[in-house]
């Protein structure tokens, strides 16, 4: 078990840096995790993060990359629902990396 400290508060993470308690998540924590991943958060990043949070809220799972890509395309348009765009925002994968920043567990089936 590891911890991170953000704005004077301590949060538990697993050994890969995913939040242990999903309810711990807030925008400051997201910004902090993004920084450790060398991701500069922009409006486009937040769009994906917020989408992931909504998806998880509804289905209680983190979507597989393929499913996320398709669903983003449906909601935000085809220019965003493709791998180039999503990997451009999150180089280590819209599943793995974006889920970590969104405070979700690693997607099922993501190695």
């Amino acid at each position, binding site marked *: 078990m590891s911890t991170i400290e953000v704005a004077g508060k301590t949060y538990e993470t697993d050994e890969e840096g995913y939040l242990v308690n999903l309810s711990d998540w807030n925008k400051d924590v997201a910004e902090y995790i993004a920084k450790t991943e060398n991701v500069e958060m922009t409006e486009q990043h937040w769009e994906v993060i917020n989408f992931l949070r909504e998806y998880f809220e509804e289905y209680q799972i983190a979507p597989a990359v393929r*499913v996320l890509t398709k669903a983003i395309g449906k909601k935000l348009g085809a220019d965003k629902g493709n791998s180039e765009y999503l990997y451009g925002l999150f180089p280590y994968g819209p599943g793995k990396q974006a889920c970590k920043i969104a405070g979700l567990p690693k997607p*099922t089936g993501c190695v």
Partner: protein
Amino acid sequence: MSDVKKFMFVNRKAPYGTIYALESLEVVLITAAFDQDVSLVFLDDGVYQLKKGQQTKGIETKNFSPAYRALEGYDIEKLYVEKESMEARGLSEEDLLVDVTVLGRAEMGELMDQQDVVLSF
């Protein structure tokens, strides 16, 4: 494509009492990545996995039932419930949280026979 096989997941256990239902769901979600022809079957107490209105706060366990509604997004759209199992539990299609095809036991047996791989949970 000739390398697409028919996979069937047979779910016969109620949720929460044992880990089978959740394990099956996780394997199904992973299998979806391999673009196979996947069917899910709910027999016996497995029908209870799809019951609407599950509230797990009181038993401090994750409610994984909303994930069945995500299956469509994973292109898993073949969900079958055995009529006899459903009726023996006082349930009807309106009690289920996803759209399913209800089959009698004979049709279910035939469908099973047509599969290349059957995984039982």
